[in-house]
């Protein structure tokens, strides 16, 4: 009997371990999209054992069409990191899809200086440690430049590694200050202080409300970064912060107290510099409290309409500051939205737009710097650093965007409002 027990426990233990590994393998694999044929020319660090299980093979056709160019100019290996599963999956998927879309477009129209781009995306589940692992996986694959990571915490972690390796990093949406603290890192979106300040100015200048409550995540660098700057700027604005309540990663389901306090303080507007998962809970708990202020957020609220099973009528009237609205009338946005919808069956959000701009910014800077595929990672990074400050990009998230050496973009914020279940420009 004793023996029998031992066998059972051994089997169980191995089953558990196996289950753990299956979990990891699956989440990492589902994020990557292998991009078909690789040019044999000069893949410096390609590991032969690389094994991609992901089935979706999105751009094989494009590569096949332009096979001749591939052989002539070589390929640039562009990596992407972001959460394609987990609480911020909407962002990672948007970045993955839009980057792929931009890469396919560029490849179809002849590439960068005749070089094709090969793009590979890895999942980090919005976890800093997994993000660094994803970065290392991409490095083993032979990545030469990085688009990522998508969320602030992950970007900061990865930036430490890219600075060490002197690899060029352009984050589409990593907004905290430290994401671009090294000179090899740039970003497409606004920084957190910038968002906090712009939100305060926008509310003040448009006289949206005079009494404001804030609910923010004190354990998150993105959220607390925006809040601090918002509170500082509020002193110069004609409104008053009547309640500022925090929550932490360990207690992010019950917001009854924070909402009750906001309600009691008579706030007409609740500022939510947080991500959409918690915001969706706040909206539904506010409705059970019978509290209906204006909710105002930053780019973190983008994606709230995609929460599975979420009653989108609760989000009606929510305002958010974001540089991109999918219903804008300009040619570039219209084409992008149409192409994205056709390919992925979904309306692109601001993160998709940031990623699309990021790939085109890389293209512009590569052309400016005269990057060739056989340059090593560090030389490429040095050339890109200079070129980024010289380009001007008319992108989806801003017209005439420029960058300075600090890595920050210069562009104007816009506000959008959710009405009728879609984001509309204000």
């Amino acid at each position, binding site marked *: 009997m004793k023996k029998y027990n031992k066998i059972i*426990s051994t089997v*169980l233990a191995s089953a558990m371990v196996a289950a753990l590994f299956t979990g990891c393998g699956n989440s990492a694999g589902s994020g990557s999209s292998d991009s078909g044929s690789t040019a044999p020319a000069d893949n410096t660090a390609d590991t032969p054992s690389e094994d991609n299980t992901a089935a979706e093979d999105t751009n094989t056709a494009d590569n096949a069409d332009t096979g001749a160019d591939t052989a002539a100019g070589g390929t640039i290996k562009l990596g992407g990191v972001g959460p394609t*599963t987990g609480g911020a999956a909407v962002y990672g998927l948007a970045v993955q899809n839009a980057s792929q879309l931009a890469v396919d477009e560029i490849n179809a129209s002849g590439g960068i200086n005749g070089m094709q781009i090969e793009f590979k995306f890895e999942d980090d589940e919005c976890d800093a440690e997994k993000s660094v692992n994803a970065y290392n996986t991409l490095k083993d694959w032979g990545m030469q430049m990085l688009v990522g990571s998508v969320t602030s915490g992950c970007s900061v972690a990865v930036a430490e590694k890219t600075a060490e390796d002197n690899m060029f990093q352009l984050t589409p949406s990593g907004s905290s200050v430290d994401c671009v603290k090294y000179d090899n890192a740039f970003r497409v979106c606004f920084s957190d202080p910038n968002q906090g300040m712009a939100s305060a100015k926008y509310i003040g200048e448009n006289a949206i409300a005079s009494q404001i409550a804030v609910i923010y995540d004190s354990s998150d660098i993105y959220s607390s970064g925006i809040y601090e700057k918002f509170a500082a700027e509020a002193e110069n604005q004609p409104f008053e912060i009547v309640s500022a*309540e*925090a929550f932490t990663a360990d207690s992010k389901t019950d917001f009854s107290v924070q909402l009750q306090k906001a309600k009691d303080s008579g706030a007409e507007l609740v500022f939510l510099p947080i991500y959409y*998962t918690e915001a969706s809970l706040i909206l539904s708990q506010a409705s*059970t409290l*019978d509290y209906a202020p204006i909710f105002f957020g930053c780019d973190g609220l983008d994606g709230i309409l995609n929460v599975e099973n979420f009653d989108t009528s609760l989000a009606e009237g929510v305002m958010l500051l974001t540089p991109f609205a999918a219903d804008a009338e300009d040619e570039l946005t219209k084409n992008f939205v149409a192409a994205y919808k056709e390919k992925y069956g979904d309306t692109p959000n601001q993160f998709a737009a940031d990623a699309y701009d990021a790939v085109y910014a890389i293209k512009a800077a590569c052309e400016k710097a005269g990057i060739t595929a056989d340059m090593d990672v560090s030389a490429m990074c040095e050339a890109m650093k200079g070129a980024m400050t010289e380009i001007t990009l008319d992108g989806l998230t801003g017209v005439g965007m420029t960058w300075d050496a600090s890595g920050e973009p210069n562009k104007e914020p816009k506000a959008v409002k959710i009405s009728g279940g879609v984001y509309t420009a204000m």
Partner: protein
Amino acid sequence: MSFISYLINGVSLGSVYAIIALGYTMVYGIAKMLNFAHGDVIMVGGFAVFTIVSTYGLPPILGIVVAVVVCTILGMVIERVAYKPLRNAASPLAVLITAIGVSYLLQNAALLIFGANTKSFTSIVSVPPLKLAEGKLNISGETIVTIISGIIIMICLTLFVNKTKAGQAMLAVSEDKGAAQLMGINVNGTIALTFAIGSALAAVAGMLLCSAYPSLTPYTGAMPGIKAFVAAVFGGIGSIPGAMIGGILLGIIEILGKAYISSQMADAIVFAVLIIVLLVRPTGILGKNIQEKV
């Protein structure tokens, strides 16, 4: 007026903790083990209801039945497969580590099946909110149902333990396993029954938790599980009324701490109170002081 509102929210949150804590405390009292997978059984209950109600669009009542059945079977299977073979292991740590392993197994299995994306849980409660004092005091239907279910469960469980044969058997096993066996009580059956009841309660807690705070992920049960464990220790682990009192007190302390001291420090306050209580009464509020016989 807001104080009353906070208090009601606290009792509601505390009722959920109490229902979860009952599962911890019963299992501890009878099997002398900490079932760390208990929190994840809550999550399984939540997903069972979600699948029935939101995915298949079936009526909530069916969801409740399915969740209770699924969790009851799951609890008994876990006990039979993972814990029973280790019950007489040399070190009590073996079964503790196994419980942590089962917890991860359940989380990762849910991750594999349902993915990591947060699901918005449709409330299964259709009780209208109660508006008092000209709309100043608004008590949601979920809060009312949670508090009432908490009270009903506590009364039923107390009656069950004190008035039925199976309940008496549980008390006997928790007192002295060996002696109970000599008196002709089926110890294995009693322990299995305890796991079944604890897991059925976890299913109920899962439904109430997800209805009140409508978000569901594979990690939903983890934090409430830990808090409920604290509640069980707080009230005196092994004691059924202790778990109820501990749970409700913990909920009230958490909400009032958040409201009047600091919303960031809520968890720190909860654990600080636990430390103070344990310093003053090492066995918890209603814990029995068992003297070791030499």
